[in-house]
């Protein structure tokens, strides 16, 4: 580095800083880095918290389950990676109290259990358990307490030993809410297991190896284990925990990703506008320096150093503000004190993004400065040497898109944004250009005031496009956020099903429905379930070997739960094909035909995994007999709807003759909890599964993310306003000069005010229109391709876009030009 030149740059920077020349550019950068780091750090913490929450459902970060004891290698490997490991065993056993006996699930746990999450117990008062049951005592879940009318301090017989019930389990973890774990649970210290005499050769024991620790070694272990596990061993992590939680987590990340993208986009626009203004205001200085003999490369260096200094200070400021704001958010908005501290990565990412924005948007203009003609000193009308606008915007779009790719962490989202940006900018430019031409033509044709005529010639197009980008981002965020949150929350109303009942036999249907009526609980729909295995697709026999994807292999190896129905479940959406009760046309209205339809409807996710398409002929093996039917529709299933869902639904004619069992989901109000116990007593063969915990988890995630997005939205709003301000500032010099000339010619301040307000109104109108147009298009793309929700055209968007555009631009414009009319004109004209 040339030291002299560096000092000169520092000197220049200081002088410009004092003159306020860097204010907008650095503010834009501070805001960009600030918002990116706020979003990044905050999202990182929320993500960590969400993962921890989800991990608490597993009781660990990773869990291996098996019906055989584990190879000691697993534990060794995990411990070598610095991870914590505990192993527990679960087995069924009869338990007794006085003269009552029932089947329960005994879980024996070692000290240190659980690794993630906490168990709430009640031993007189409800509190978080600090360890595990002492030797000789057990903790018992609510169901068993009620069933035996147990109290803390009572005795419970397990195998050959008697235990003291030391506490009631209020909130449990590590429950695999599969259909098998419905029975009452007893938590026991592992030192007591031998004494019960229950574990013998041939006992049905589920072994679980639970592992927790830092993310990096966890993922290293996950990769290593994948090659080591034998066939009966199953590896689960947080994302495998439950489809409901996984879906909630994925949606959460989509929300936050979207918000981060929006902020980055706005920040980029603001930086671009500020850089442009900076360059325009330094033309004279550059021309003079060129006259004085500075070389082009030295000039470029001089400005690069200044930009580096500005970037460094602004990025630091941004990071500081980002850290403080997210800390404040966590403290005051989320009211959470136990969120994990954010990692460094989001901060580094935000800082690098800040520099990328600065140079992506400022570098080409700087190159222009380098090439300024020294002749400008004499001929002031010599402006910037032309650089292709396409090159400038192309580079900017590329930088933004790569940032998006990086921020979003999703190629799909990033590519969408890149394509959208390029196409969008091109179209926006054309649209604005056209509008302005038409406007200018009409203004001349109908002798409208000159404020409208000049629009076509000035840099108003830049302003309109920049403003509409800001507006679009705001509209999309409001629109998508609102719709998405609504459709998400709508899935989990307060009376969302919180119990599943499975194993209902055909002949029990009547009496079960009667039972519900007696208990005054709304009678659920009983859905038939037939077990079948997919054996051929389009006549071609398939086996696990036909697929590379492990999920597909697993799906083909086991039996599916098939169901049949006349109507599609209302919580499913048809994505392709037609549902059968709609498929008979008026030309063939015969009911006989309809009943004879052999058709299948497949869930779109599993269809993708198994490469099944509309029209494929699937052959199933049900209890030894085969049937084939074509796929006539693909459905989308909301896994987080807490309803009974099936991968494959058939027309009744295909399955109704096979033996079926039934299942249902229903909402059991809190005041009717006892009805659940009555059901278990009256229908001992049925399994009643309580999913309240899961619902609470999903609700918690939705609530947290809603709040997060709301806060991020405020940031986006601020960035949008900065864009607005920067866009107006970009033409302020032009405006000040124009005002001075007009004043010389005799315009009074009322005239100037009218002139500017009408100009701002037109700019606001155009920007609002364009923003609404773009928001509708982008909203559609996002809804359709990224977030997978149905898109509703929100007509309010036009109203709010246009009126918001006019009001905001007029308001900001009014305040930013108030000063313009106050400067004595000669000072402006001579100050040039």
């Amino acid at each position, binding site marked *: 580095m040339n030291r002299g030149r560096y000092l000169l740059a520092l000197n220049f920077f200081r002088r410009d800083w004092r003159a306020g020349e860097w204010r907008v550019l650095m503010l834009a950068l501070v805001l960009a880095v600030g918002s990116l780091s706020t979003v990044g750090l905050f999202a990182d913490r929320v993500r960590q918290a969400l993962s921890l929450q989800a991990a608490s459902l597993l009781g660990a970060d990773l869990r291996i389950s098996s019906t055989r004891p584990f190879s000691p290698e697993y534990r060794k490997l995990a411990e070598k990676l610095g991870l914590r490991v505990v192993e527990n065993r679960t087995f069924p056993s009869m338990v007794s109290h006085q003269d009552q006996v029932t089947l329960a699930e005994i879980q024996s746990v070692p000290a240190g259990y659980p690794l993630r999450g906490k168990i709430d117990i009640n031993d007189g008062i409800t509190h978080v358990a600090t360890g595990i049951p002492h030797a000789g005592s057990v903790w018992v879940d609510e169901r068993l307490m009620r069933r035996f009318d147990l109290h803390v301090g009572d005795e419970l017989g397990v195998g050959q030993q008697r235990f003291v019930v030391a506490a009631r389990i209020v909130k449990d973890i590590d429950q695999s809410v599969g259909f098998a774990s419905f029975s009452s649970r007893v938590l026991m210290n592992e030192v007591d297991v031998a004494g019960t005499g229950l574990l013998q050769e041939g006992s049905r024991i589920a072994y679980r190896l639970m592992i927790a620790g830092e993310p990096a070694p966890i993922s290293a272990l996950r990769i290593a284990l994948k090659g080591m596990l034998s066939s009966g061993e199953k590896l689960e992590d947080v994302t495998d925990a439950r489809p409901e939680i996984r879906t909630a987590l994925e949606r959460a990340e989509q929300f936050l990703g979207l918000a981060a993208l929006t902020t980055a986009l706005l920040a980029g626009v603001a930086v671009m506008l500020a850089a442009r203004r900076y360059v325009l205001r330094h033309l004279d200085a550059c021309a003079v320096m060129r006259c004085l003999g500075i070389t082009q490369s030295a000039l470029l260096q001089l400005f690069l150093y200044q930009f580096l200094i500005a970037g460094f200070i602004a990025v630091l400021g941004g990071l500081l503000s980002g850290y403080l704001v997210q800390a404040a958010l966590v403290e005051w908005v989320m009211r959470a004190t136990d969120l994990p501290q954010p990692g460094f990565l989001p901060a580094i990412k935000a800082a690098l993004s800040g520099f990328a924005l600065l140079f992506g948007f400022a570098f080409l203009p700087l190159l222009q400065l380098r090439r300024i003609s020294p002749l400008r000193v004499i*001929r*002031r*009308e010599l*402006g910037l040497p032309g650089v292709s606008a396409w090159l400038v915007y192309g580079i900017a779009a590329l930088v933004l898109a790569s940032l998006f790719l990086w921020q979003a962490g999703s190629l799909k989202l990033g590519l969408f944004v890149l394509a959208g940006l390029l196409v969008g900018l091109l179209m926006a430019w054309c649209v604005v250009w056209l509008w302005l031409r038409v406007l200018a033509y009409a203004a001349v044709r109908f*002798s409208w*005031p*000159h404020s409208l*005529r*000049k629009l076509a*010639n*000035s840099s108003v197009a830049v302003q309109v496009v920049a403003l509409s980008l800001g507006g679009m981002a705001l509209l999309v965020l409001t629109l998508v956020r609102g719709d998405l949150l609504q459709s998400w929350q709508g899935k989990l109303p307060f009376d969302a099903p919180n119990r599943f009942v499975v194993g209902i036999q055909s002949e029990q249907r009547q009496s079960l429905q009667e039972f519900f009526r007696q208990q005054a609980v709304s009678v659920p729909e009983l859905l038939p379930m037939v077990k079948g295995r997919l054996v051929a697709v389009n006549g071609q026999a398939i086996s696990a070997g036909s697929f590379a994807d492990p999920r597909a292999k697993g799906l083909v190896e086991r039996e599916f739960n098939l169901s049949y129905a006349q109507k599609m479940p209302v919580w499913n959406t048809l994505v392709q094909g037609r549902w059968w009760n709609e498929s008979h046309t008026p030309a063939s209205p015969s009911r006989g035909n309809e009943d004879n339809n052999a058709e299948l409807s497949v869930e779109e996710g599993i269809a993708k995994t198994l490469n099944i398409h509309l029209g494929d002929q699937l052959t199933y093996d049900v209890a030894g007999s085969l049937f084939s039917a074509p796929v006539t529709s693909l459905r989308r299933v909301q896994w987080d709807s807490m309803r009974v869902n099936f991968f494959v639904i058939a027309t009744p004619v295909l399955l109704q003759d096979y033996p079926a069992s039934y299942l249902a989901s229903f909402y059991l109000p809190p005041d009717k909890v006892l009805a659940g116990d009555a059901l278990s007593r009256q229908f001992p063969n049925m399994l009643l599964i309580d999913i309240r915990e899961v619902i609470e988890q999903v609700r918690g995630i939705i609530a947290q993310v809603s709040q997060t997005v709301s806060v991020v939205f405020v940031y986006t709003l601020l960035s949008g306003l900065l864009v607005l301000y920067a866009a107006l500032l970009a033409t302020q010099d*032009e405006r000040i000069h*124009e005002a*001075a*000339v*007009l*004043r*010389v*010619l*005799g*315009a*009074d*301040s*009322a*005239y100037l005010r009218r002139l500017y307000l009408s100009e701002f109104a037109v700019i606001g109108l155009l920007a609002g229109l364009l923003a609404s147009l773009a928001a509708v298009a982008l909203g559609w793309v996002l809804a359709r391709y990224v977030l997978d929700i149905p898109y509703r055209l929100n007509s309010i968007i036009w109203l709010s876009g246009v009126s918001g555009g006019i009001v905001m631009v007029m308001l900001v414009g009014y305040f930013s030009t108030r000063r313009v*009319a*106050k400067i*004595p*004109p*000669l*000072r402006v*004209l*001579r100050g*040039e």
Partner: protein
Amino acid sequence: MAITGASGSGKSTLLGLLAGLDVPGSGTVKLDGTDLFLLDEDGRARLRAKLAGFVFQSFQLLPTLSALENVMLPLELQGVRDARARATESLNEVGLALRAHHLPKHLSGGEQQRVALARAFVCGPKILFADEPTGNLDAGNGAQIMDLMFELNRLQGTTLILVTHDELLSKRCGKQLRLEAGRMVP
């Protein structure tokens, strides 16, 4: 009247004060019997619109308006109805009818100053303030512009206040006023 003097002698400042474009620390200026500095900024602007025309060294055309639209501006400010026709006529007088729809950046310096002249005279001002009108032009263009300005001045019977340091030019004016370090010298 010509105001002459060396650079920095205060010629342009004086012109600015005479036209009410700047505000003095003390003292006052009466324009057509009206005390300029008893009026507020808007009052002075309205007075200028009624009385005065301007020509500057750096032309001061609005870059976003065409030549014709620049000339129409003062007429529009006064709410004149046939602004377009009168502006076209005025452009015609300075010989730029064919360049009426060009933006200033597409005109040469001489052409730009002719547009400025057309704009200055289009309202038929009682008084014309000209600040080094040939300062940014070469000798040939400068001479043409001056000829044109004196011609229009004569035709319209306007009072001309001309700031210049061109001795020859000042000789063409009826009165000469010489400034040195902000003071009038004989």
